[in-house]
């Protein structure tokens, strides 16, 4: 997918409703249930093996850059808006992107020596996304020093979320993806359905990399 350079202000890039998004070509990414057998603990596998989860079938992604920022606009179907965290059983809707920080990082959360950077947005903190690093299932650590701003809209049974960040980051540079114009990089996605108590590895994920060409 081409990430076009549009010389608009960051606020327009960060707004899911901005007209500039009409010019970006979207890509539909198929999602599937993260396998119960691959859950990191037996409790989770046992509890969820016969239950439906990760049923979000697909997500549409668009991306744009300007001189110094990049923005991803994710859109997926979710008839129930879960944004609060009041009851112990409240799990807000969430979505994440995963970027490999080395050539051979596995799509499933990376591995020892081959870390991945996660951009994680959750509906209880609608205007920012967290930056995490992981080296395998169950290892993600919150870095959070790279400021990823977000804007989210839930309308007509769909979430539209824009995550926006500077192309290059200084702080936590080693644990966050650096985005270089002209470069090609890979990403993949996950979606959590809050009404179904989805969290951690109980999610829908995209089992393939999406290539991004960052327009120079």
């Amino acid at each position, binding site marked *: 997918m081409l990430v076009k350079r549009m010389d608009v202000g960051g606020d327009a890039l960060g707004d899911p409703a901005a007209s500039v998004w009409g010019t970006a070509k979207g890509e539909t990414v198929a999602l599937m249930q993260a396998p119960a057998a691959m859950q990191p*603990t037996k*409790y989770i596998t*046992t509890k969820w093996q016969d239950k439906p989860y990760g049923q979000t079938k697909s997500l549409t992604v668009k991306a744009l850059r300007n001189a110094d920022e990049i923005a991803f606009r994710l859109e997926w179907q979710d008839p129930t808006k879960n944004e609060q965290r*009041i009851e*112990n*059983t409240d799990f807000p809707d969430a979505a994440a992107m995963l970027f490999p920080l080395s050539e051979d990082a596995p799509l499933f959360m990376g591995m020892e020596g081959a870390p991945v950077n996660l951009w994680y947005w959750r509906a209880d903190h609608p205007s920012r996304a967290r930056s995490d690093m992981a080296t395998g299932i169950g290892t993600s650590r919150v870095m959070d020093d790279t400021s990823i701003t977000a804007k989210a809209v839930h309308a007509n049974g769909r979430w539209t979320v824009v995550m926006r960040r500077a192309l290059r980051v200084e702080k936590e540079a080693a644990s966050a993806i650096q985005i270089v114009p002209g470069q090609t990089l890979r990403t993949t996605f996950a979606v959590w359905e809050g009404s179904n108590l989805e969290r951690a590895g109980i999610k829908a994920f995209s089992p393939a990399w999406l290539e991004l060409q960052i327009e120079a």
Partner: protein
Amino acid sequence: MSEKTDIGRELDGVLQKPKRQLAMVFDLNKCLGCHTCSISCKRQWTREEGMDNMWWAVVNTMPGKGTPKNWEGMGGGWDEKGEPRPSKIPTRDEFGDAWKFNKEEVFHGGKGKTVYLKPVNTKGEDPDWGPNWDEDEGGGEYPNSHFFYLPRICNHCTHPACLEACPRGAIYKRDEDGVVLINDKQCKGFRFCMEACPYKRIYYNHVRDVTQKCIFCFPRVEKGVAPACARQCPGRLRFVGYLDDENGPIHKLVHKFKVALPLHQEYGTQPNVYYVPPLSPPAVDMHGKVDPSKPRIPTEYLEGLFGPRVKDVLAVLEAEKEKKAKGLPSELMDTLIVYKWPENIFPDFVQDPANL
């Protein structure tokens, strides 16, 4: 239960065994139901933001629904085959939640004579459960109504379901004393531990998005001070010590005299909190006639909580009590009586916190 099984377990073919295991024994025959333990824990550890609904130490009236409400029917832990038993996350209402009162209105609003203090829960509703909602109700019919108090904390289990359910590796069992702790830097508030713990002794901090539970007062223990619940208990029933310390009261009560039993051993987590089951007066009929063959608290009920050895334990306690009454020596009774406080009840933790 052999000594081996309560200090080690196999996990993925590897023996997991802390160097030592701290444990507590609660002698239920001495509990007054005063809640000093719960309050001292509350004051010590759960005064921060997001902790207002937390009671790491509770005292439930038994028979009763407990904290959270009906926790014994929620699942969790391990089945007979060692497989995890699915469970649920207890809700705030089931725990009882933290209530807010209209103090402003009553104390400062000039309505002190017409408006009374009235609690509401987080949802703004009339509470219909609390940590001690069914306090002193108990069970049985007049004239054989009965109840006893059951203090409960995290059991710092040898086979902790909470630890093994956490996908983050955020829960760990300390090698030096077997205390089970949650690392709140690793915890992401996923709450699988709250589900998996069959004793439902984990709370969720809504402000910090992490889970929290009893820490066996480890910062006190490291300084030779007994946990707050044990040190403050006026009933002096909370024994603290290491399971392998043959001269300590824990080893004596659990392994030598075998009168201290874990609660719901069948949950499979191998708890390190043990209970001396309560004796009860004999049943009476409507005319006040005593039937010495029938205890007022049905033995089957106690067996449901503490397992099939209850009968033997009660018999031992009765026999030793008899001996003592006749002026004969009984090491078991002497251990339970605690002549010298604090050295007889938590010999390794006698430091006075006021002197630190």
